[in-house]
């Protein structure tokens, strides 16, 4: 009988398998990246435990951490080349969304992501990562381009929500969010989305109708901000922590509910602690997810994608 293969790599895979069995959970990325076994083990223990209310709130804080990497921080680290494409070809270039063509691990991909600002000036210019309809139109134009040329689509989700303003409404905010989802639903090329920070409501889901949807370990994905939920249901915005514990916007709960397909680990302490390591882990997760869907026939992929979203919800009767 041949000896079973050993070594840290195999050990890591075993741990991963054990975890998947333990919690019906898929973990993406991490192998051979984060380094030694003990570190990965700790990471796995951390992700596999049931999150407490405090941990959920910690995720909310980390997801909004001002040093957390944004889309362009990742693009810079994950991609060998990136050519930004700007403008919606109708009215303007909304800076809350960035889009372009990138070379990612040997292939050309189309990339679309929300972009927050770092400096006060940039935050204002990018309207705090809250897109106007023009941003979604730009996203759609690049998605269509990807489909036409056969480039896989990667989207990075990081927004408090779509911009809540007069001009955004006049330009059809609701309608463009709907049409952007429809555009993603109809793509023949493979797509993968990852929530890298705040997945805020309709403004987030607009670019997250992908074959595979991932979340970083400390990202949040929610129907409303904890403060908004608290203001409406508790009639007190300061009850945000209570609200977050009730509606569970953290990655582990999203995975349990079937909303996402996998969790991308972050470096210890969170993505803000080590941008390079966070980017390597994210790239790994995106590539694995892309690999799962890229060999499929386009028509099958589209119908699988439809089935994936069609199945979401919990009801009786």
């Amino acid at each position: 009988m041949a000896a079973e293969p050993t070594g840290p790599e195999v050990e890591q895979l075993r741990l991963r398998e054990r975890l998947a069995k333990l919690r019906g959970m898929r973990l993406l990325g991490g192998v051979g990246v984060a380094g030694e076994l003990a570190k990965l083990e700790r990471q796995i223990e951390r992700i596999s435990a049931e999150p407490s209310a405090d941990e959920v709130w910690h995720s909310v804080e980390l997801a909004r951490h001002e040093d957390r990497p944004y889309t362009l921080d990742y693009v810079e680290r994950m991609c060998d080349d990136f050519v930004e494409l700007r403008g919606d070809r109708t009215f303007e270039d909304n800076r809350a969304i960035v889009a372009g063509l990138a070379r990612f691990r040997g292939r050309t991909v189309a990339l679309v992501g929300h972009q927050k600002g770092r400096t006060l000036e940039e935050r204002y210019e990018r309207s705090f990562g809250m897109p106007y309809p023009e941003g979604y139109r730009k996203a759609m134009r690049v998605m269509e381009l990807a489909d036409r040329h056969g480039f896989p689509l990667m989207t990075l989700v990081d927004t408090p929500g779509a911009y809540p303003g007069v001009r955004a409404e006049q330009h059809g905010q609701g309608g463009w969010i709907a049409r952007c989802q429809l555009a993603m639903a109809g793509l023949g090329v493979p797509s993968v989305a990852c929530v890298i920070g705040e997945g805020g409501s309709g403004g987030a889901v607009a670019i997250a109708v992908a074959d595979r949807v991932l979340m970083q370990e400390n990202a949040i994905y929610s129907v409303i901000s904890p403060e908004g939920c608290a203001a409406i249901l508790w009639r007190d915005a300061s009850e945000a922590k209570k609200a977050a514990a009730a509606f569970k916007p953290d990655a582990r709960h999203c995975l349990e509910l079937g909303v996402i397909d996998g969790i991308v680990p972050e470096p210890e302490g969170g993505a803000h602690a080590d941008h390079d390591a966070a980017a390597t882990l994210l790239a790994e997760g995106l590539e694995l997810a892309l690999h799962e869907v890229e060999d499929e026939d386009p028509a099958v992929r589209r119908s699988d994608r439809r089935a994936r979203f069609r199945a979401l919800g919990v009801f009786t009767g």
Partner: protein
Amino acid sequence: MEERIEAVIEDRREPKDDGGAKHPNTCPGCGSHYRDDELEATLRVCPQCGHHFPVRARERIAQLADGGTFAEADADLRSADPLGFFDLKAYTERLAQAEMATGLGDALVAGSAAIERRACELAVMDFAFMGGSMGSAVGEKLARACERAAERRVPLVAVTASGGARMQEGILSLMQMPKTVVSVDLLREARAPFVVVMSHPTTAGVLASFASLGDVIVAEPGALIAFTGPRVVQQTTREKLPDDFGLAESNLRFGHVDAIVRRADLRPYLGRLLALFVDGRDGR
């Protein structure tokens, strides 16, 4: 008995929603007051000023469908409580109360019908059931309505009235947006027509999903149609809002709806539209 007492205390702790609100049959437009049977006879439109009062789902179906043609589907479908959600009250209790108050299983009633002798699927929302919010039951019923329409290759007519996603179902309520969107994608693939009637209010998650994807979108006069409502826009941006912010009339002006149709004209309008879609199919 203990449970009963607790429920009463719970209710008292909760501030009243209707602080100083007018009677539902008092017209907010001109202050005229009507008996319920008077409003029913005018399709719930104020004869004095033309204000369109909200219409409950079953009454809307009676207004639009040819007599005796509506056959409800999925009447037993109910939202579950995936998060065990509890704010000031348990979500399961809110659902039970809404069902008691409205006689509906959730905020959408769907089924097959004929409008002016044209077969269709009809999906009508009811704002009285938790603000017409979209949770798993609403999403599933809408998805099934799309599938039935695609299967039968008949038009789907949807009448919307919604405050948005149902927060008590957390992220799963947000997921009803892409769920209904992919269902419309299926409808489009089957080339089944989709007509949306936006009534007051059609906002947030419903506006930003299936409601905006109609082949034809019409609005009722004065309906609020906005992704973000005026109060939140005002609070967040401190912008000065135009007087007609988000109203149907402003949406028509900015190109987001095809027409504003008065309620008295709605049924014949839909009849004409369905006839054009169905009779002219494939160049016949």
